[in-house]
């Protein structure tokens, strides 16, 4: 499978996608555990457009991570279909993976590799050209301020540093769709601020960020649209204004509490 970098070239930062195009599309997605006894995700349909920062909210065990894992191809839905950047995740998983940058809630990093070995491994499997990878990695390392530690074994990193390394690894192939599960956890305020900035910049270029969070203020400030999931079902979705109108509450926190009670 050859990497298709033309769709998100590093040099060209102009938006190349139409604003109305669905970058993430879930249609009737369901997932159960324990032989169908526990419905983790129940008939979810959702569309996220290009140029959108989409916040995915919900209480613990609501189905957020299961949904995210299905979008990135880690879990297979029992029913329904998922596409990313127009590509069916089940039918063409590799093509979809090239277009996704995923950061899980617990960073997936090899403790016994050095930071740079880990990043080079990812750059190799995502087939990032040599010049581009240097530029991109250095840029991201500067942002997250871990350049000095990159020659050390990951096992010597703090949790926050591992999270920053995982973020760098997920973004270095400049994917059009970022899927971030609780990305702010473990980050210091500066890195958190810079990540939010990166997310906004990514969307300004016409790309998409889909992220889950428990920090409602972040969702309020950053997201174009949010969805609230509870017991596997989407119970509210839209811009913050839309949701406010529907529920006649002042803050997202109050709406969240009311809906997930």
């Amino acid at each position, binding site marked *: *499978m050859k990497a298709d970098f033309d769709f998100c070239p590093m040099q060209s930062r102009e938006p190349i996608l139409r604003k109305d195009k669905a970058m993430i599309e879930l249609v009737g997605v369901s997932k159960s555990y324990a*032989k169908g006894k526990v419905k983790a995700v129940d008939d979810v349909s959702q569309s996220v457009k290009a140029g959108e920062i989409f916040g995915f909210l919900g209480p613990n065990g609501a189905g957020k991570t299961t949904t995210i894992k299905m979008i990135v191809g*880690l879990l297979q839905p029992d029913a329904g279909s998922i596409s990313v950047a127009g590509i069916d995740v089940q039918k063409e998983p*590799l093509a979809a993976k090239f277009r996704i940058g995923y950061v899980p809630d617990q960073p997936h990093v090899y403790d*016994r590799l050095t930071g740079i070995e880990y990043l*080079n491994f990812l750059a190799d499997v995502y087939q*990032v050209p040599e010049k581009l990878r240097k530029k991109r990695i250095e840029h991201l390392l500067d942002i997250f301020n871990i350049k000095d530690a*990159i020659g050390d*074994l990951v*096992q010597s990193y703090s949790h926050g540093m591992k999270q920053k390394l995982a973020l760098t690894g997920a973004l270095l192939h400049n994917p059009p769709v970022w899927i971030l599960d609780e990305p702010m956890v473990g980050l210091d305020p500066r890195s958190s601020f810079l990540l939010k900035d990166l997310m906004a910049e990514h969307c300004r270029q016409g790309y998409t960020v889909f992220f889950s969070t428990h920090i409602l203020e972040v969702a309020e400030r950053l997201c174009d649209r949010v969805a609230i999931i509870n017991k596997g079902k989407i119970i509210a979705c839209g811009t913050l204004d839309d949701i406010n109108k529907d529920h006649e509450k002042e803050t997202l926190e109050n709406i969240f509490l009311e809906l997930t009670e």
Partner: protein
Amino acid sequence: MKPFLALLKVTFRNYFGISVMKQKYLVEKKDLWQPIAAVVGIGFILVFFFSMSMMFSKGLYYVGQMLGEPALVLVISFIAIAFFIFIFDIGTIISVFYFGRDNELLAALPLKPLHVLGARFSLVMVSQYLVQLVLLLPPLFIFFQGEGLGAAYIFLASVIFLVFPVLPLVPAAVLSILIMSKARSKRIKDTFTILTYVISLALAIGIQFFMQSLPQGEELSSLEAMLQTHGALLSKIGSSFPPAIWAAKSLAMAGSIEGLLNLGLFLSLTAALVALMLVLGNKYFYRGLFAGEEVAKKHRVTNSTKTWSRSSPFKALLLREHRLFLRTPVFLMNVLPIAVIVPIFMLIPLLTQGSLHEVVSFYPFLSKYPYLKLGIVGFMTFIAGTIPLSPSALSREGKLFTLSQLIPVSPREQIRAKFWYTLIVNFVCTLPIFVLSIILLHLTWLDALMLGLLSLSAVGVITSLGILIDSERPYFDWEDPQRAVKNNLNVLFIMLISMIFLAIMAGICVGLYLIVPWWLGYSLLLLLVASISAGLYFRIQSIAERKYRYYEL
């Protein structure tokens, strides 16, 4: 005591995956063939080694009887088993003690270091009962049967059976606690781990030297002669390793006051050893446990052009396999000793007993029956079956297998990288045996070429079979890396399957010997094994393509 018991319960549940098994096999009733296959596999291995141990114990008992000291079988067994456990389980102790994933969680709880240490020690101790079942039960039974003893013996033997692992495990634990307490970083912790493995390896080689220095085939009678010249055996050994004699006397004199006194001595010593370990552990255990947890301050600068050089995804995957294997001491030290120890064990008889003439006398047979040379391939294949790399090819990644599911490289290509890396390591590990055999048996280059190709193909079969087993039942949910390679049942399965494969191949060789000349037989065999190897190679790729994304971690 209550917190310790709670911890003990959780530690056992977690380590042996009891809750997971309950859920999977009893509630969901999924993959029920797995426990059945495990019981059959373990049963087969246990019966095999148990019978060997029974034979040896019987021989030893008769020697003891002739010397008028029938308890000899017990004393020697106690000493041998203690050494065996000490040597082979010091690595397990380090892994269980220091490389668990729940270190931070436990340290944050209101538990003393000795609680954590005690729970982990109990874990290792219970794991030893399976070993003892094979090694200690036969001598205990032979002595019971031979001496016609009663219920008191059974009771005391059960007590000693349960307490016995303390004797070798506590010194191993104390040694590892003291060594690890000096570690100041994770890197040094890894170095110490490797060092401990090397020491135990050297001890194993030393014991093999001693065993081989006894005249071959007459070990028992030479032992008898040695004992007669050195005076009373029991007191002789008793002076160098008293607990063995206390345990033996308590059993031999079961029901008498002297027997009880000896049991008292034995139990007091074991209690004192445990107390010593707990006291030391309370002081030093956490030092080693959290060495290197702090973030490194000295950073190594990386700015060479090599740093940014691009590799193909396949090469990147090979490199990942290689680095993770080399940098995880537990993985490395479960494989490397096989490459070192087997050739050394082959050489020891030649060095200590001058058996070279026996090898020379074998040459005419090889010329007359060239099929015998295939024994080298068989031996290499058997050894490859004991290397735990292929049956843990996927499992070794643990929970980070998720990353392999996420990267945009086809499972087919990922499994290819695993296959080639494992094949190289397996073949390199068996290569010293091959080279040594070629040199010792004065084989021609043509022989070497044919046998080499055959071995490579056969090792390829074993490698693919190992990966196939691991693809069917990968074990990602391990807490410490030791569990991925040593306590992984897949390792046992590949050993069994490689033995079955060898038995089938031996049958085919006999058939070929009867109907075709050796050169044609070799060629046909090569064609067959290479075809199986190639077939399996493609099979593991198609299975990976089918299964990779369905593994739910």
